[in-house]
């Protein structure tokens, strides 16, 4: 029998529905375009620069002639981010543990969480400014710009990320686990380190990896804390190069070869960050808590 009894809805409503849904899908497609373009350009412009020599030579800083490679930048990024991680993770984790295991619900915890939230919103350049004022201008450690000062700025950046994500994961650990440990007579510290942390470890590692990925890509805080320098530095008290700073320095250059260096460095940086991000997601997916 026919569908006559169901007066069909007006053509206008049909049209609006189709248009709206099409519009939403279209905008979603639009959102994907920049990523595709950036990846394409990175590969197109940067692959040409990649070679073994690229990673094993320092930038020469010479305007004409051989521009060199990016060795000092890679080394600098690894060193500075490494130091920053070594500081930010224990501190960030410590604060998260305190928030969940010791201070939960207290007024102080509210204040701490509020300040951590504030920190997540602070622009990275302001962190650089902090370090600049307190460490660089004052010449702390006998130097003005130094790698470890850059690390400090990065650590400040990473701290709220580590704390936030660790707190979320620690809260996900079922209380029943803690209570089981207490019931067996375990003291607080043993429960935290032997029961809670191991359970939360994948989630914590995920958060740490994401924080590292974030720190590796930051330029602004390094500009006036570690400065930019061409030679590979292994002493944290010296100025240190970094991938983002190198890229930034070479963007405005009129010399094509320097620009290619910049693209190659950018490709390297994005590859590093992508690997860290993918690793983090992989661990997160296999975690029992998520």
């Amino acid at each position, binding site marked *: 029998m026919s569908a006559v009894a169901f007066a069909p809805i007006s053509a206008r409503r049909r049209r609006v*529905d189709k248009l*709206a849904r099409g519009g939403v899908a279209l905008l979603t497609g639009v959102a994907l375009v920049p*990523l595709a373009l950036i990846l394409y350009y990175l590969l197109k412009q940067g692959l040409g620069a990649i070679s073994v020599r690229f990673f094993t030579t320092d930038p020469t800083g010479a305007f004409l002639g051989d521009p060199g490679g990016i060795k000092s930048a890679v080394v600098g990024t690894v060193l500075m981010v490494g130091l920053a991680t070594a500081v930010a993770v224990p501190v960030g984790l410590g604060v998260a543990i305190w928030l969940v295991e010791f201070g939960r619900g207290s007024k*102080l915890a509210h204040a701490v969480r509020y*300040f951590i939230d504030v920190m997540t*919103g602070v622009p990275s350049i302001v962190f650089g400014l902090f370090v600049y004022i307190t460490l660089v201008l004052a010449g702390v450690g006998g130097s003005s710009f130094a790698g470890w000062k850059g690390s400090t700025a990065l650590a400040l950046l990473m*701290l709220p990320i580590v704390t936030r994500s660790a707190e979320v994961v620690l809260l996900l650990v079922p209380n029943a686990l803690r209570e089981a440990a207490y019931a067996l007579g375990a*003291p607080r510290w043993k429960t935290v380190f032997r029961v809670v942390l191991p359970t939360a470890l994948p989630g914590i590692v995920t958060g740490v990896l994401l924080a590292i990925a974030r720190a590796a890509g930051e330029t*602004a805080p390094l500009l006036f804390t570690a400065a930019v320098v061409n030679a590979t530095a292994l002493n944290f008290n010296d100025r240190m190069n970094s991938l983002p700073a190198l890229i930034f320095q070479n963007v405005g250059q009129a010399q094509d070869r320097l620009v290619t260096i910049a693209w190659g460095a950018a490709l390297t940086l994005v590859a590093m960050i992508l690997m860290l991000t993918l690793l983090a997601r992989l661990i997160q997916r296999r975690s029992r808590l998520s």
Partner: protein
Amino acid sequence: MEAGTIASAGGRGSALHRSPAARLPDRVLRWGLTALSLGVIALIAFFFVKLILESRPVFSQVGLGTYLTSADWVPNKALYGALPLIAGTLITSAIALVLGIPVAVATALYITELAPRRIRGPLTIVVDLLAAVPSVVYGLWGFFFLIPKLQPAERWFADAFSFIPFVGGTVTGPNYFVAGLILAIMILPIASAISREVIATVPREHKEAALALGATRWEMIRMAVLPYARGGIAGGAMLGLGRAIGETIAVTLVIGNAPVIGHSIFQQGYTLAAVIANEFGEAASDPLHRASLIAAGLVLFVLTLCVNAVARGLVLRAERGRRPPEMAA
């Protein structure tokens, strides 16, 4: 909450007490971590105070009012009016919101409500991948690709729509619009992620109520999903705004760094964050210049504080749901 060991080692003393030595690690841990957490608060407060102190020279010499309202930023002449910087920050952020938030909400809607199930996961990953690109790479791409490619289109637009205020006039390569566009792309992942979360929590019963009344899919979204989610979406937008305000490197590479207030969105400008990154080198030897840059950082800090506070409030309220107290039956 500290459990005493019943089966205590060696049976020394009462089975229900631990020796002070055994309790030590717990106390060390507790007080150590408390000190750490307090230390973090102290650190932030200290930095804030330091920012204020170090920027005082410019406030005493130039005056807070002049600093915030004068449009003349000429360090050579010791003129420090931050209005072009503040204006540039606000203009680029506004463009970023106008361009970015609709797209972010659209992706969130599409992923949660409209997309076929199988592509939801991959689509989410791709949208979130935008967050993995560091800002300097955005700047690099913007500088070499966006600026030249967009210029003809911008020129056409400025001519065709010159009746719209702030559109007509000359078009420079680097300009507010390109900066705003790049910012829009950068805030997309966070705004989309938060919107997705909020849209996913719309209770099924409201969606079903709309559908059962004879609503099309889009009408259902308009009736049941968007009104419910709008608080959280606004919160996500604010968080994106906070991010846009503070973004330095990508902006400074594409905005032209001209300390003026451009007459159209297709002209050069400057932002608070960009000026700090660009001029601190020359300011190293000029204390007043340095103080003015630090003051710019202070203004930036305060701006992001306010925006993020609003954002947090919105997201919190959205999470708590809407349950006004029941009226008398």
